[in-house]
């Protein structure tokens, strides 16, 4: 056997297709214990013995070949098009041992397309606990195929599956069910009109709801003798087909599959009753969210401080070690400061992904989807929109793609348009740094105000999404039909390996994805902040010294000197005679005078750096946009950060870190730099009104070019991303303006 084998992995949603795919290929595609994770096909290679390779295509889950949504059609189209380059030599149909009956419906349909199909019964490790006994040999005999009993969690049965794939030529491609019995006359005419076509394939093409490009639905109608039927009639025939298939499946399972229902139900049903309860369900969800946000704050404080201090030390080390010059300054003030602005958030992002992965892996996320369906209905969305919206808490891009499993175009469009309101991980750095600056680090009943604020911001994003959905539901005049069926997967102990990979992969993509943009923007910003064309830029030291000589230090510098002296006074003990940690009363005045002189020199240097920054290229650009952002409480530096973060929200912190680094002659942590920023009147720049205004701006603004790109692709129109951009920016501006004006 020298030819490589093309294999399609197909099955109902949430049967563990991607886990089998990962086990076969050694790849690490995202998996989760709720339906709809895979919305487009993924490919990988599985090495078999004797140098044979199996090219595996992991297809999105589908309950049957009668597709209703775009993601399902991906799977069906591949199986219908024998000329497609990926058309499989073998279909590996993944089923879940607990839902075998339902899973076999799809299996029989694939067999009727005359595609050789192996049946994989996954989650075999749950059989004993669920009281399931299975006669595998009997089932193989009845279905005339080979079966692999697999547990991806325990990593059993995969080698057997590989063997079966390798010997795929022995798998028969005989059909299971003769569907012509549901309407003999109709199928006879069909057979005569298209003598060369597979009858069942024709039937699938005629009855599908989603248009396929190569196999157009209208193709059969081009034949004059085509026995056309009304849509309602076809649907009735489809129902008869389903009944016929279930009769066939029931007959087989009656002899081969036994369930002790006493063992199967019980605990799961009791837990579901509580977790999906009309009152307790929401309360528990709320408490889980609260715990997550509290833990994110409590657990990440130490690693964050460590990372922050490490970057400051790295910056200092570079300046001390490398020869002085432009490149050294660029690395120390531009690159290291910019990258530090994103790396510092790794602990919090990783904890967030860890908790999301736990919820997904345990099966709780499906219960959340069920709960949310009730909430969403009055707002024109269904539970099908919940999966994209929940995915939006990580990133809007896969979330927008996940809308492909929504069959109603109107509902899908609304979900695409409102998903970017959900608080994605890119907003997290902005929120975290602002919360740390403006919300007191105090607790109420054991809960920190900072964690509560973060949770409020997540809720604001969700409320904004559903309110916008209501408005769009009324405005958009698109005919729609919608239904929602969610599968409740079994509760499982999270597989730590999956959780670990999810956290690592997501954190890596967050850091690398945004990191490259931040690095590039930091470099450009450093140049713009370090060079200028005006005379004032080049004569900054003379101008500042002259000003200080005639008018004294600025209010900001005076506040800085006063703060430091106060800090010093509080840190020393004064005694009659000097001793360890004690300064003699007589020496206090001298040391204070010395400190004041030193601080004044530092303050003057700081004023020079700050003046140069204002007169630099970026300073002039910032002053140009300042009138627009001033009513929101922002200065020109924040204005520049808002502008650059249009590329990606997390660029905001990196931009400020670089700007403040250039505008300062001291190495400081990002948080301290931002905390030290003052307004002209000496008040802190990042106070409550400015902070709330900024957080609200980022809660609503469409600050992500990549999301716009995906929306354009998914809607195939510029109209919707532009509407999204203008609408969200306007809402953000108005909310930020109102917050600042009211609070100040």
């Amino acid at each position, binding site marked *: 056997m020298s030819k490589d084998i093309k294999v399609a992995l197909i099955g109902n949603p949430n049967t563990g297709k991607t886990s089998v795919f990962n086990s076969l290929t050694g790849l690490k595609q995202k998996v989760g214990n709720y339906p709809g994770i895979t919305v*487009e*096909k993924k490919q990988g290679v599985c090495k078999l013995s004797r140098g044979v390779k199996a090219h595996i295509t992991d297809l999105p889950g589908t309950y049957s070949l009668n597709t209703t949504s*775009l993601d399902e*059609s*991906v799977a069906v*189209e*591949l199986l219908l*098009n024998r000329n*497609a380059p990926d058309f499989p030599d073998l279909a590996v149909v993944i089923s879940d041992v607990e839902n075998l009956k339902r899973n076999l419906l799809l299996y029989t349909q694939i067999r009727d397309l005359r595609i050789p199909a192996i049946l994989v019964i996954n989650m075999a490790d749950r059989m004993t606990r669920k009281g399931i006994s299975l006669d595998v040999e009997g089932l193989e005999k009845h279905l005339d195929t080979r079966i692999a009993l697999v547990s991806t969690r325990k990593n059993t049965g995969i080698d057997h599956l590989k063997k079966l794939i390798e010997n795929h030529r022995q798998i028969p491609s005989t059909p299971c069910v003769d569907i012509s019995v549901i309407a003999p006359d109709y199928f006879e005419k069909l057979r005569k009109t298209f003598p060369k076509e597979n009858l069942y394939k024709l039937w699938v093409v005629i009855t599908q709801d*989603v*248009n*396929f*490009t*190569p*196999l157009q639905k209208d193709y059969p109608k081009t034949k004059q003798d085509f026995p056309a039927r009304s849509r309602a009639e076809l649907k009735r025939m489809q129902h008869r087909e389903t009944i016929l298939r279930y009769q066939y499946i029931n007959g087989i399972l009656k002899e081969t599959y036994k369930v002790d229902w006493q063992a199967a139900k019980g605990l799961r049903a009791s837990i579901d009753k509580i977790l999906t309860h009309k009152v307790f369900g929401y309360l528990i969800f709320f408490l889980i969210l609260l715990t997550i946000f509290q833990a994110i704050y409590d657990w990440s404080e130490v690693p964050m401080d460590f990372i922050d201090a490490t970057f400051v030390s790295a910056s200092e080390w570079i300046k001390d070690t490398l*020869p002085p*010059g*432009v*490149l*050294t300054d*660029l690395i120390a003030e531009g690159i290291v400061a910019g990258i530090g602005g994103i790396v510092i958030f790794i602990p919090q992002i990783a904890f967030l992904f860890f908790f999301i992965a736990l919820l997904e892996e345990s099966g709780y996320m499906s219960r959340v989807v069920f709960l949310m369906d009730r909430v969403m209905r009055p707002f024109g969305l269904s539970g099908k929109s919940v999966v994209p919206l929940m995915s939006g808490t990580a990133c809007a891009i896969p979330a927008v793609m996940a809308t492909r499993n929504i069959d109603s*175009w109107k509902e899908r469009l609304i979900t695409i348009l409102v998903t970017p309101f959900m608080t994605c991980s890119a907003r997290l750095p902005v929120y975290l740094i602002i919360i740390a600056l403006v919300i007191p680090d105090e607790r109420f009943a054991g809960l920190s105000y900072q964690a509560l604020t973060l949770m409020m911001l997540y809720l604001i994003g969700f409320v904004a999404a559903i309110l916008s959905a209501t408005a769009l539901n009324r405005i958009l005049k698109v005919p729609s039909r919608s239904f929602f069926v969610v599968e409740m997967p079994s509760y499982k102990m999270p597989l730590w390996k999956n959780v670990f990979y999810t956290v690592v992969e997501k954190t890596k993509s967050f850091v690398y994805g945004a990191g*490259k*943009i931040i*690095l*590039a*923007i930091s*470099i*450009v910003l450093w*140049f713009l902040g370090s060079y200028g064309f005006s005379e004032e830029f080049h004569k900054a030291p003379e101008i500042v010294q002259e000003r200080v000589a005639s008018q004294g230090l600025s209010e900001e510098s005076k506040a800085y000197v006063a703060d430091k002296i106060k800090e010093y006074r509080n840190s020393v003990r004064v005694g009659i005679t000097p001793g360890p940690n004690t300064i003699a009363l007589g020496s206090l005045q001298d040391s204070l005078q010395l400190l004041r002189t030193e601080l004044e020199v530092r303050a003057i240097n700081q004023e020079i750096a700050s003046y140069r920054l204002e007169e630099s290229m970026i300073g002039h650009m910032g002053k140009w946009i300042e009138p627009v952002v001033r009513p929101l409480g922002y200065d020109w530096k924040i204005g520049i950060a808002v502008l650059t973060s249009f*590329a990606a929200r997390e660029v905001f912190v990196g931009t400020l870190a670089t700007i403040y680094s250039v505008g300062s002659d001291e190495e400081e942590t990002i948080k301290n730099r931002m905390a030290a920023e003052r307004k002209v009147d000496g008040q802190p720049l990042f106070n409550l009104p400015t902070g709330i205004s900024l957080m609200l701006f980022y809660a609503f603004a469409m600050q992500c*070019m990549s999301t*716009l*790109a995906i929306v*354009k*692709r998914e809607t*195939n129109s510029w109209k919707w991303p532009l509407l999204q951009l203008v609408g969200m920016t306007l809402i953000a501006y108005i909310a930020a303006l109102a917050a600042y004006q009211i609070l100040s």
Partner: protein
Amino acid sequence: MVSWQHILAYLILGAALLYLMRKFIWDPFGAKEKKKGGCGDEDCGCH
């Protein structure tokens, strides 16, 4: 006088600008070559 530090710094600036241009100006909306085929492909554009 232009030092080696200047040369390297400007090269880094050039690379950063090039990256940003390619990312957001030349091909900002990912219009990479469209795959031929049907709705199974990402850019089918038929819906």
